[in-house]
């Protein structure tokens, strides 16, 4: 009976997706919206990378929602996993130390690669408006650096208090910049509160690099805390 329901559900999904895919034909011309974005983003926002310009300014509210979802995930993982680690802290710590230490290769490799990963994360965050990347991606890269740090030495301890304060501060600053946009520019999260600067330089495109940096800090801190909660 259960199996029958599963098969019916799969068939229904198949029908829906076939309807979506079957009628697909590649457009030969750009839609008016894409045309508008491609021509207006570099001129209006001063950002050569159109994707980040859209994400942080035109769709800034969506990005705020995304970050809020991530914050809720981090908070609920903390609620679900925190009390266990409090009770069994000694036990799990002893267990993880008893488990074999990572090999020489992993430790040495991590020492060589870690600075490069963090540097690349910072580069991706700060060059979001110039090349591919942005706050979210850079934050994820930084968090994967933290992940490598945890893999390489099991004695690594994250300072959760510091990370929470940093993350909350970044969130508050992000929303404040959005409100400054209402006061000094055309609307919530408008990036024109700062001067546009020279096209294509690091400090240009208004508030986009600032918002990008705050996003990167927030995402990096949240993802690191989530992984660390799972660790012990």
């Amino acid at each position: 009976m259960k199996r029958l329901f599963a098969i019916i559900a799969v068939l229904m999904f198949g029908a829906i997706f076939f309807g979506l895919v079957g009628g697909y034909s590649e457009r030969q011309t750009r839609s008016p919206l894409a045309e508008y974005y491609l021509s207006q983003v570099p001129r209006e926002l001063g950002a050569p990378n159109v994707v980040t310009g859209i994400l942080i300014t035109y769709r800034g509210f969506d990005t705020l929602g995304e970050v809020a979802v991530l914050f809720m995930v981090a908070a609920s993982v903390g609620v679900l996993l925190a009390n266990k680690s409090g009770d069994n802290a000694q036990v799990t710590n002893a267990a993880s130390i008893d488990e074999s230490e990572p090999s020489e290769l992993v430790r040495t490799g991590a020492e060589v690669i870690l600075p490069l990963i963090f540097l690349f994360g910072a580069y991706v965050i700060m060059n979001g408006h110039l090349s591919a990347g942005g706050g979210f991606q850079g934050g994820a890269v930084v968090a994967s650096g933290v992940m490598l740090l945890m893999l390489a030495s099991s004695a690594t301890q994250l300072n959760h208090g510091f990370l929470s304060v940093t993350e909350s501060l970044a969130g508050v600053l992000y929303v404040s910049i959005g409100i400054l946009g209402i006061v000094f520019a055309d609307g919530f999260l408008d990036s024109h509160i700062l001067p546009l600067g020279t096209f294509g330089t690091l400090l240009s495109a208004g508030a986009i690099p600032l918002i990008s940096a705050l996003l990167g800090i927030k995402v990096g801190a949240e993802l690191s805390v989530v992984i660390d909660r799972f660790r012990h």
Partner: protein
Amino acid sequence: MLELLVILVCAGILVSGVLAVCLGNLLAAMISAGLASLFAAVSYVLLAAPDVAMAEAAIGSGLATLIFLYTMRRTGSGGEP
């Protein structure tokens, strides 16, 4: 040439996704799931969306795989089907 590459990479996503479901060994299934994410990231690069590819490679194949690994260690179910 590009189309052939995209088709190959998409076949990689499918194969590793099916393997992730079918493999009995949890560790191997976890690695296959990470591999599916990695192939997806490569396909995003090929389809000229490097921004998405970066997030997919870091979160999908890096962080999610590690979270699975830690969960398996905590629940003590590593290896057995």
